[in-house]
């Protein structure tokens, strides 16, 4: 998802063409630039199967179903369908090191108008709100049309935004479009300090992000009473769990106001998932085993109730259905009809949710979901 933008760098066009540039991977890292996507590098971990194999190879004290059984929470069942999460494509203007989507400028997967129409038909049959993610969802050519259609059905719309996309000329008028349609903006910002942010995401990214946040503030976003909700998302920049959300929110609120005169409504802390580029980083940095074990050891039964798979339907760019965006990237299909054309709400309610080892990421510590901590 776009909010997974932790420490990537906005790619220059040259680097996006994998294999054409002269920069080796270590050089790119030393220069603080991102690597191209796993797909463009034809890396083994570009395949979901290879990711699952690697994740399952780590010695762990117990498996996720066992943890749920011990807590009396097995099998994992749905609550109500509150959120229709549409992953409208893997194209992104950034290539963040921690992206679980392996999104980037070289990706071509993008949801068509026809698939969006099928999603809208499902939406009309439910009470759900809409959570649009990617990639950078704004890069889908039908993005604005989709938002307008969801709003026409009277639904609340969230956009998972990496902020820097709103600083590009082609999308400069999007903040006004968002305000006009009362779109909730859920955006990634790794830190409230320029030095930390730029070290993680590349020179100038903090300044761009702050510039965009100020524009959003000027439109009423984050003022607490305009109804224009602005949420920041922070993932840890490494192989450790996020800090307590409430403490961080208070600190960020104080520091962003004091340093940058920026306001926001809420801060979500989200745990990094051992999937795709973050999985690759875990393995390369020698952190895979320790991180997986940390997630298992931090299993918190109280965090299970609020996990997103219980109230969310995740739709891929091609219309495939999943229990969550993470299962989508691992190609673990939902039980029942596997395409949006065949969606049935009753089947969705009755299904067993598909789990694997990465699910420990959502239940570790204070829990983690698309809405931040769950416990």
């Amino acid at each position, binding site marked *: 998802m776009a909010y997974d933008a932790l420490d990537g760098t906005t790619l220059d066009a040259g680097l996006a063409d994998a294999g054409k540039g002269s920069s080796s991977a270590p050089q790119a890292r030393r220069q603080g630039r991102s690597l191209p996507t796993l797909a463009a590098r034809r890396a083994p971990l570009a395949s979901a199967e290879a990711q699952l194999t690697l994740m399952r190879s780590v010695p762990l004290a117990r498996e996720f179903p066992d943890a749920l059984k011990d807590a009396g929470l097995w099998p994992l069942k749905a609550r109500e369908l509150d959120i229709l999460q549409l992953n409208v494509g893997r194209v992104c203007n950034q290539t963040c090191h921690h992206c679980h989507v392996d999104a980037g400028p070289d990706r071509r997967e993008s949801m068509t108008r026809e698939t969006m129409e099928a999603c809208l038909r499902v939406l009309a049959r439910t009470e759900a709100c809409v959570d649009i993610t990617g990639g950078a969802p704004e890069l889908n050519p039908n993005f604005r049309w989709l938002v307008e259609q969801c709003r026409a059905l009277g639904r609340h719309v969230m956009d998972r935004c990496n902020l820097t996309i709103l600083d590009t000329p082609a999308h400069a008028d999007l903040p006004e479009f968002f305000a006009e349609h009362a779109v909730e903006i859920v955006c990634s910002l790794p830190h409230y300090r320029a030095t*930390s942010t730029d070290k993680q995401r590349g020179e100038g990214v903090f300044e761009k992000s702050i510039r965009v946040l100020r524009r959003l503030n000027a439109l009423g976003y984050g003022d607490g009473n305009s109804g224009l909700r602005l949420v920041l998302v922070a993932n*840890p920049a490494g192989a*450790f769990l996020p800090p307590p959300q409430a403490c*961080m929110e208070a600190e960020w609120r104080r520091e962003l106001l004091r340093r940058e005169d920026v306001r926001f409504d809420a801060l979500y802390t989200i745990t990094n998932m051992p999937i795709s580029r973050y999985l690759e980083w875990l393995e390369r940095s020698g952190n895979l085993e320790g991180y997986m074990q940390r997630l298992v050891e931090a299993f918190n039964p109280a965090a299970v109730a609020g996990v997103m798979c219980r109230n969310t339907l995740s739709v891929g760019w091609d219309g495939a259905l999943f229990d969550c965006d993470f299962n989508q990237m691992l190609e673990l299909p939902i039980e029942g009809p596997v395409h949006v054309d065949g969606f049935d709400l009753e089947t969705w309610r009755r299904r067993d949710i598909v789990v694997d080892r990465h699910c420990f990421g959502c239940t570790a510590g204070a829990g983690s979901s698309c809405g931040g901590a769950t416990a």
Partner: protein
Amino acid sequence: MSDHYYHSHDLERFGEIGDHAPELAKKFFAWYGAVFAEGALTAREKSLIALAVAHAVQCPYCIDAYSKGALEKGADVEQMTEAVHVAAAIRGGASLVHGLQMRNRADGLSM
């Protein structure tokens, strides 16, 4: 047994300090947990103090545990580096201030 005094995996075995004194260990761990709970100091402040002390007592296990602990409490490397400097300043200052003890003694012994 390999030829090292320190083994990183021994950190996970911390609980085994109770093997021959279970009652004492129980008291120690209960107290330890209470010390690090959010109180008049935040959990993060306590983590940073622990990290600084870990460097002062030069305990590799504590440095391992509280480097991760401080990050998970939301501290960043700049704050953690400053904490280590606090430990180092106190250590350096402690040596230097004892120079007065040396001078007192030397003065007493000298004509």
